[in-house]
């Protein structure tokens, strides 16, 4: 059995969630659009799930649209809102460290006549309202800022950004995937108008997510068909997955508090010990305003993929922002936005804790990390022993 420390990439479905889903594959297989009693059972659980999931983020049940996941929700929020609001303006603001889906959707919108501005972040990865204010103008229709970075774990000042957008009468979208289940989120307190959330990131099944749409915010549908989800997202509802997400939310409401305390303890110990034991090692992201389960390091003179492979040899699964492990061979745009050079962005290690980690997992990492780093540094032309601090 390996030690899994990459919860940011994928989470196992909680067995309690699977139990809740099972009857909906065979016994309660109805289509909510059907008018007979088998269909009624499906309608009932669909609407109950919508209410439960909505409550988790402070939303009313008719403000929740089921989608195939957060990527679809992001597409729907940005493209759907931009197309609907074309008469009001054509300018959209995002940050330099948004998730790749937001960056690529923004590029798509640019090719289709919209103008996109990107807010630079500070060295800890924080977006400032000041830099946002410099960028909005009379044509700005939408601001999209992720709640927290899935890579470096920095949490954004969402309430302040939401308040600013509300005052300027600009719609505010936030992708909460990295933060959901780790931080309590309330769309009303934080003035969020559109929000993307995934099921898997709270230990529900993959292939499901929601788009929260504040009452009064109008968007165009992207998937057109039989008119499900108030005509905004057609296609027969994925009832087993929806039931799974509902159960995942219920469990999260019960356990989030204790769980995040446990992660924070792991995180703080890992960060403190790593920075003490390994020379020329740095923490990426914000020292305090960071997700409770995220530790993100960089090491002078070594490259992330070799780091990842070395951990793999020891049966420890971790992640890296190295270009060599990416599809495009580009270094992480988030690390570059922090002000790092390419060679520095290559030497990163991301560790994210989750529900099924045990106390010994931090020891497992600390037991091998210093040796792995020192072995790779011996191979490296960039790291001279005498330069040790």
């Amino acid at each position, binding site marked *: 059995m390996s030690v899994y420390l990459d919860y940011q990439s994928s989470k196992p479905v909680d067995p309690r969630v699977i139990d809740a889903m099972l009857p909906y594959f065979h016994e309660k297989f109805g289509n909510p659009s059907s008018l007979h009693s088998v269909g009624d059972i499906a309608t009932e659980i669909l609407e109950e799930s919508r209410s439960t999931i909505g409550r988790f983020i402070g939303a009313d049940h008719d403000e929740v649209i089921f989608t195939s996941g957060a990527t679809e929700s992001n597409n729907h929020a940005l493209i759907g809102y931009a197309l609907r609001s074309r008469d009001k303006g054509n300018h959209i603001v995002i940050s330099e460290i948004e998730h790749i889906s937001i960056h690529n959707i923004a590029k798509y919108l640019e090719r289709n006549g919209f103008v996109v501005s990107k807010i630079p972040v500070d*060295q800890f990865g924080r977006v400032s309202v000041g830099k946002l204010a410099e960028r909005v103008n009379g044509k700005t229709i939408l601001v999209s800022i992720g709640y927290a970075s899935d890579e470096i774990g920095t949490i954004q000042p969402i309430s302040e950004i939401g308040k600013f957008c509300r005052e300027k009468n600009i719609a505010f979208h936030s992708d909460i995937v990295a933060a959901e289940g780790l931080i309590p989120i309330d769309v009303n307190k934080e003035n969020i108008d559109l929000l993307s959330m995934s099921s898997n990131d709270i230990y529900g099944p993959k292939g499901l997510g929601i788009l929260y749409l504040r009452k009064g915010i109008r968007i165009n549908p992207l998937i057109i068909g039989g008119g499900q989800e108030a005509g905004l997202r057609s296609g027969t509802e994925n009832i087993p997955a929806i039931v799974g997400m509902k159960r995942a939310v219920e469990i999260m409401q019960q356990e989030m508090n204790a769980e995040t305390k446990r992660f924070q303890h792991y995180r703080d110990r890992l960060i403190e010990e790593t920075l003490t034991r390994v020379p020329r090692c740095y923490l990426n992201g914000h020292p305090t305003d960071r997700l409770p389960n995220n530790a993100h390091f960089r090491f002078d003179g070594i490259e992330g993929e070799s780091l990842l492979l070395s951990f793999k040899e020891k049966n420890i699964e971790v992640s890296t922002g190295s270009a*060599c492990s990416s599809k495009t061979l580009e270094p992480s745009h988030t690390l570059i936005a922090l002000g790092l050079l390419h060679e520095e962005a*290559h030497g990163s290690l991301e560790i994210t804790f989750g529900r099924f980690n045990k106390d010994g997992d931090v020891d497992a990492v600390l037991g091998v990390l210093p040796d792995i780093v020192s072995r790779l540094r011996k191979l*490296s032309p960039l790291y001279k022993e005498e330069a040790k*601090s």
Partner: protein
Amino acid sequence: MKSTQYSEKVLDHFRNPRNVGTLEGEDVAVGTVGNPVCGDLMEFYIKVKDNRIEDIKFKTFGCGSAIATASMITELAKGKTVDEALKITRQDVADELNGLPPIKMHCSNLAADALKNAIKKYKEKQEPLSKQRIAPEEQKEIAGMKQFRGRGVYEEISDLSLFKDKRVMILERGERSIEIALKLTKLTPRVVFVTSEKQLRPGTMSEELVESSTKILYESELKEIRGLNTVEKVLMHDMNEDEEYELFVDSIVILRNE
């Protein structure tokens, strides 16, 4: 195929790389190659006797396949004549390793290039250079300098606390610029020191700067300052690789020449 799905042979060379290290001596030539896209860097040391590669060592900063291909090529090249070694291609290296993920073929290219570069250096040593390269020392204009003066660009420093927790870039302008860089490291975790030289002029403060958390960019020049209302990023020129890239910074210190 995923970029990290490596053959057992690649993993073997990654776990136990052959011929790691450096060589010294009159008959040693060093070849260096960096791949700017991937950020990999390789150094090869060859010792040539009677036109044959008698010994070869390497160091590499890079992904698993970069390490494995460097290790592999040292085995392929050892004992060959320099002309035979020049014929080793990236395909040869990949084949010897039982294949590489397609996206990683550039890494093995790097190993072959680095070896070729070392051999080129060896050949150059045999016939001394006729022309001596002289780097002209000229003060080039930095685009955006005027626009951002006082908006993130500082030519004189009176209050260091201005830079607290900012990403500060400081250009080499003699001893005083090093002194300021050292002071800044106590105020902010990110200080970038830019020099057009290959190394800093020897001195206690230079040594201290190298030892500090300051990121020193050697053989580099600042080309352009960019931002909306204030400094947000810069365009840098790596003179060694002749490459340009953007770097996010908040403040830039460019002292007037002493």
